[in-house]
């Protein structure tokens, strides 16, 4: 009983935040709503007996990624967007995608209702830190390594983009630009 009430509380909060994220034109409200979605989702993970995933959700998404998003919004000090007239046709595309998403959701409902209910084994350890760690470093070692290399590539890319140029390179760049100005 209690868990049903809690489920609807968190699920309702998640949906409300998601709607508010799409609805608001002010980017900072959208960002705050998205954080709300992440927190509500992590509460749902706790109820599904997956505390590790719940905590990782907050640590990675709410604690790291969204902080950077908020940072960017704060630094750019974005104004409220005015409605665009020349991109009207995008409404139709958005509507189509929305219908597709809705169909997908209903299909998932249908699939969930059709699958027979299998009682969960009381001794199951899925969701516990130990079983996640073991699975990641034995069965799924290759995907984990590939993701690690990809993240490293992203970091190197970011560092390359913001790196200060050495003096000779800088001179070269300035020369090129002054040449362009003369032309």
């Amino acid at each position, binding site marked *: 009983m209690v868990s049903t009430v809690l489920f609807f509380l968190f699920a309702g909060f998640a949906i409300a935040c998601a709607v508010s994220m799409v609805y608001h034109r002010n980017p*900072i*409200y959208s960002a705050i709503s998205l954080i709300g979605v992440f927190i509500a989702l992590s509460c749902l993970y706790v109820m599904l007996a997956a505390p*590790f995933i719940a*905590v990782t959700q907050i*640590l990675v998404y709410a604690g790291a990624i969204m*902080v950077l998003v908020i940072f960017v919004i704060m630094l750019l000090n974005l104004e409220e967007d005015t409605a665009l007239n020349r991109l009207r046709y995008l409404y139709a595309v958005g509507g189509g995608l929305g219908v597709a998403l809705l169909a997908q959701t209903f299909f998932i409902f249908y699939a969930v209702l059709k699958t027979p209910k299998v009682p969960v084994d009381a001794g199951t350890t899925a969701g516990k830190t130990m079983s996640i760690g073991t699975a990641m470093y034995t069965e799924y070692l290759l995907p984990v390594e590939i993701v690690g290399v990809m993240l490293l590539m992203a970091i190197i890319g970011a560092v390359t983009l913001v790196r200060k140029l050495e003096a000779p390179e800088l001179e070269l760049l300035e020369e090129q630009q002054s040449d362009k100005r003369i032309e």
Partner: protein
Amino acid sequence: MEEAVKTAFPVLVYSAAILLAFQGVLMIVAYTVLAERKVLGWIQGRIGPNRVGPWGVLQPFADLLKFILKEDIVPDKSTKFVYFLAPMVAITAALLPMIVYPFGPPISDPIGWLVPYVPVIPLGSEPNIVAWIAEQARNMPLTIAQIDVGVLFVLAITSVGVYGIALAGWSSNNKYSLMGGLRSSAQMISYELAMGASVIGVVILAGSLDLNSIINAQSNSTFRWYIIPQFVGFVVFLIAAFAETNRVPFDLPEAETELVAGFHTEYSALKFALFFMAEYVNMFTVSVMIVVLFLGGWYIPGLSYIFEVGSIPYALASHVGFLLKIFFFLFLYIWIRGTLPRFRFDQLMTFGWKFLLPVAIANVIVTIIVVYLMN
């Protein structure tokens, strides 16, 4: 009757536990503020607050009353909703980690231990309910929520606390607030990494992310608090803890000479009090983490020779020992505030990224190699 008791029991016990922990933490926080003013006074050759109550012991209540009665000023051009949300986020994120603190060792049979001393307990006609409650209470750990990722939980929730400060700085619509908020969030994000990396060594040694298991791993017969094998991790964690809580010498977000009061420049009355309280609760949280991870938590060597393990006196003595260790670190915070000057912002960033983080990572690698070779 019996069913009602069985349904109500967990709710009552957890509500009582949360209330008790909440009250306890807030009282400790209130008296940390007083202790800070007193100790700073002594360091600077002053007396400190001494007018409200004997030796000023009622000062925190006077301060609270003052915060409540002050005028609550909201800047005209502020973003209202976010302006109100920010202090709430800050205090919630500060108080939430409380639910995983290991306050003391499990008591093996609390009700059974009490029966000879408190004749009221058997409740007359329905002894089976008492037996049921005694069964439920057996080996109950003195933790509100026993989750197996306690360390990560604390790190995750404290990382959410950044929003309180960042949003407060942004929504106040004041350049000093914005600069303070930005500085503070940049600092917290930077030092969070070093903090997390310094914890990994302890987690590897203990083989668990659960705070109670980490304490148990440190309490096995011999004297093996992790401060000895993980001394580097301890120092990194301690420094990162000072930066995480925005305390001297890392209190750049509130550098008075540059930023007035930093992110809370525009906050007054109770909203300011919430930020103030959140800072001290965060100090308490990192002190708890240091004690649990590196100083054996509630474990006191030799206590098992005096009291029987699992009895109530043992739990109480352990709890007092736990608090004393925490108070030492709270005192250390105040001591350092009275001693050290402030860093410059570029020094702070260079120190965090180019020194603290590499040291923490090197510590993790060395720990992994040593543990691998020892097994």
